[in-house]
């Protein structure tokens, strides 16, 4: 990805371009007992809110100030103006910033990190347009509504990557009953992911796991005598004949995917494996559907 694209404005512009194709997303809010906050989030039923919902005949118990006199003047009975119940949702995104995300298998493909940032910000744009509150999973950027939050998120996303070879999610800052999205390659130790998901499930948080892989990582097109190194150089592995390892590697990566999928099912999350060679649009659509899901 070019340097211009790495600047916050560049990233945001591309993310907005991607998000422009979709209608504003309205996340189906489940019952949020404690964290109910009013927002532009219609519940398709009468309740507290700003938007007009319906007129209904007044009945006993309605306060006189609730009667809509303008409507009642046109009939013989009194009408009460009801408003739509609106509620806002919180979405927390964990974006893996480890060095392994900086890998790309071909010059004309974006790195995995680029793709993850793009998807995360596009999702944020959609959410914020729909009136949701979007933030990061750690405490650095708590969920907030509004366009300003987009700028803040974009700045966070384009911060320099961390030093670690493989990233692990932090589950401490989850808001109860919020929605969460994890974007990573999940090639490192799966234990922290499992811990974070379990923690999230405990708090009633549901969401989506998006595994972003380079096509090279799926195909393993290597042969001959090779020394493999991790991106930060902490791990090395030497083989005499890389071609012979291909089947076993592919088996392992399939196992990893399967494990993540099972984990997601167990905790009520959804799992997607996205390749940087594919269009980001399909992944974004999938995320849209995943967060819209009403359980």
């Amino acid at each position: 990805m070019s340097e211009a694209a790495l600047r916050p404005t560049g990233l945001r512009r591309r993310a907005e371009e991607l998000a422009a194709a979709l209608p504003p997303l309205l996340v189906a809010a489940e019952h949020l007992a404690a964290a109910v906050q009013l927002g532009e989030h219609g519940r398709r039923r009468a309740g507290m809110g700003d938007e007009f919902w319906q007129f209904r005949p007044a009945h006993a118990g309605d306060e006189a100030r609730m009667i809509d006199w303008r409507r009642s003047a046109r009939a013989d009975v009194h009408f009460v103006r009801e408003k739509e119940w609106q509620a806002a949702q919180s979405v927390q995104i964990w974006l893996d910033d480890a060095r392994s995300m900086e890998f790309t298998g071909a010059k004309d493909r974006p790195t995995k990190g680029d793709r993850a940032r793009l998807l995360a910000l596009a999702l944020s744009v959609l959410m914020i347009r729909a009136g949701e509150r979007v933030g990061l999973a750690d405490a650095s950027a708590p969920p907030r509504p509004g366009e300003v939050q987009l700028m803040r998120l974009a700045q966070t996303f384009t911060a320099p990557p961390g030093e670690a070879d493989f990233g692990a999610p932090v589950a401490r800052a989850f808001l109860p009953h919020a929605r969460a999205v994890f974007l990573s390659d999940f090639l490192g130790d799966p234990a922290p992911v499992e811990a974070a998901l379990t923690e999230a499930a405990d708090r009633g948080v549901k969401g989506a796991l998006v595994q972003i892989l380079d096509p090279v990582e799926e195909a393993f097109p290597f042969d001959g005598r090779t020394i493999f190194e991790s991106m930060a150089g902490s791990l090395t592995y030497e083989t005499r004949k890389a071609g012979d390892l291909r089947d076993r590697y592919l088996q392992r990566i399939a196992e990893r995917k399967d494990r993540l999928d099972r984990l997601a099912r167990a905790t009520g999350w959804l799992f997607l494996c996205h390749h940087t060679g594919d269009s980001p649009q399909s992944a974004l659509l999938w995320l849209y559907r995943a967060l819209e899901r009403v359980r």
Partner: protein
Amino acid sequence: MFALGPIGFASPWLLLGLVALPILWFLLRAVPPAPIRRRFPGVALLLGLKDEETEAERTPWWLLLLRMAAIAAAIIGFAGPVLNPEDAEAGDGPLLVLFDGSWADARDWQRRQDRAASALAEAGRNGRPVAVLSLADLPPEAPVFQSAEAQATRLPGISPKPWEPDADALEAWIGALGDALFDTVWISDGLARDSRAVLLDELRDRGAVTVFESARDVRALRPASYADGKVSVAALRARAEGSAEAEVTAHGLDPLGIERELARVPAAFEPGAVEAAAEFDLPPELRNRVTRFEIAGEASAGAVALADDALKRREVALMAGAADREGLELLSPTHYLSRALEPTADLIEGTLADILLADPDVIVFADVAKVTQEETDALLEWIEEGGLLVRFAGPRLASSDVGRQGEDPLLPVRLRVGGRSVGGTMSWGEPKSLAPFSEDSPFFGLPVPGDVAVSAQVMAEPDPELSSRTIAALADGTPLVTRRALGQGQVVLFHVSANAEWSSLPLSGLFVQMLERLAVSTRPATPSVEDLRGTTWVADRVLDGFGTLEDAGDLPGVPGERIAEGHIGPDIPPGLYAEGDRRIAVNTIAPERILMPASWPEGVRVEGLAVLREMALKGWFLGAALALLLADIIAALAVSGRLSGPRQGIAALLLVGLLMPMEARAQTEPDSAAAYEMQAASQVALAHVLTGDAELDRVAAAGLRGLSDVLTARTSVEPGAPIGVDLETDELSVLTFLYWPVTPSQAAPSARTYAKLNRFLRSGGMILFDTRDADVTGFGAASANGQKLQALAAPLDVPPLEPIPSDHVLTRTFYLLQDFPGRHVGRAVWAEAAPPDAEQAEGMPFRNLNDGVTPVVIGGNDWAAAWAVDERGLAMFPVGRGLAGERQREIAYRFGVNLIMHVLTGNYKSDQVHVPALLERLGQ
């Protein structure tokens, strides 16, 4: 030289290097390829995996083998391998290289030459003196032995002859040999010959004889013969082994005078047969065109059978004066004639008008006296173009007054009133016999049978010319046959009747021979000595050994008897011989010839012609080593896993390049003439004359392109791309419209081109001449272009012209126009003048004139520049100023549209004026 099988080595000690190969094997095996470092996040998943094959740290065996092979090839290459090293054959003393040199050698003459050259080179290396001889072209003296280099220069000068070695010349040559001793290399043509055994004995007495003979069969063609309407040609072969097929082709001139293959018939040799017949069933017109037959693919004089008069069937028209009397066939005036001519000529009968339409070679009048004036004129015209009129006398001619008063154009001499009758019951004299033919008579040499008697004849009026016109006379000197040349043809009068009433001549064999000598009939296939006695034949075209006809040059004439003997040799080379109108073919192969393969006695070395060439293999081996090393680079990359991405493609390309030999393909030039005709004929295309001025041609092409675009947009005429026409070479008949910009510098077309242009104009084409100078001058010779136009158009078939009148059909073929501007305005445009009797019809707005398309339109308004558009469809040149100029350009386009409509529809628009009248008539 150290040799292994067919391969020898120049420096065999280098081969010891091969011993080092096993050491190299161990060295290379110990060094595995270096690893590659790769960054790969998936490494976390790889941890803990073990390599399956632990041996891979050594170089794989096939890569080792590849490298071994490369090094071995290099070692062998430097050792200098040679395929078929020539070990010198022993031998000293003089060497005679002997060709048979006959037509049978011609087909693989080059290989024989190579064989001889190889023998010469070998003798040269051994320092032997050499002589090279061809038996068909023997010098009278003994061979002179010289150094091989000197004789090698003579080698290309020896060519096969169209005849075979002559036994007499051979005997003389053997006699001249004396007691010289030499070895002989005899390059034989493979045919059995009586003289062979004699010569072989003689040569074996003098030294070793080695015979080289081709393994290929010898094939030949016998002369063609004609029977039952079919031409039969027999193909011969020397070896009767297995079945084979020979394609016999007939060649001749097509109607355009170009030599072509006219027919092709396979002749199948049965197993065991040495002869196969090819039968040509050709229509007479085609048969008369055949000049020779040949076996396809056999380039030798023996495989060519020349055709002559014997195959030609003349068309002879017979006319009798009297209607046939029923039942009196033997008295019919034409009975003996048709019997004599039937076997060798195609007879035509009918009225004179019909006969002349058929354009026969000969017309025979048997006792025809009166011919009308019109028929006389037609006959004279036909005779002057080369026809032969043969007249026979008879009672009608004798009693008529034809040729009595003055010389009749259709009779060679004046006739006396009445005839003469001798030897009858009422007369005293004996029937007269024939006098021997004089030397200048065409019948000279024919034997005069004693039993031919003439009892009645018409008499010629004595005349100073009479003796020179007499070609046969009676014993008393009275003319029997007279002849007079007329234009290119001639008139011949037999003073007797064509039936046996007046003489017994028609009953004799002489009658047939006389007709043949007059070229009325054609002679039988093989002329006998009597047939040709007294004639002298001059070679017209002669065959060379390879079967090609060449100009005879100035060979001396040959007496007919010698030709009839059938002997050929240096003095009578095979070919076409002519005497007057008659032609005779002397063929290499006699009619009864059988080919037999040569048989050699035991003890004579007979070898094939193939020469094993010494071939140095060093380059090949070194090349192979290089190729193997290149393959090794790719293989090493593949083994170490570095062969991925674009490198893979490059490597694949390299491999393909290594494995596939380069194939050079001759790109055939597209036939431009055919392409031009296809383009012009497949669609309407406007054409312009290529003037040679590149800029002018470009503007003309652009102008026609612009006009084509306008036509396509506005009318149903959709022309193709404009065509530039080279008047000299391109065919004009496929064009309809030709734009001819005139420049002072262009070359005038040739006479042939003018004929082509006139044909184009007469067949409905139109030329638009444009002098492009209306801005500076008026019409006429005032400008250089005008003068050039006059010069160019002078030979053209241009009708009288007039400025286009206001009611000319050109003014209304599509648009209604009043004037015809191009880039310039003003001056009149000229077209074919209206006929003087053209009148305006009642109620018609226009005169009914120009029934047809005007062949030329001449002007100077530079239309092409006004029409010209570039590739983007934008006008190339400004016209006038502002909107008025654009209007002028529009009118110029309209003129172009009208012009093309006029060319394509003719006077259709002119006829449109009749529509009201027609409708009125139909309505009632």
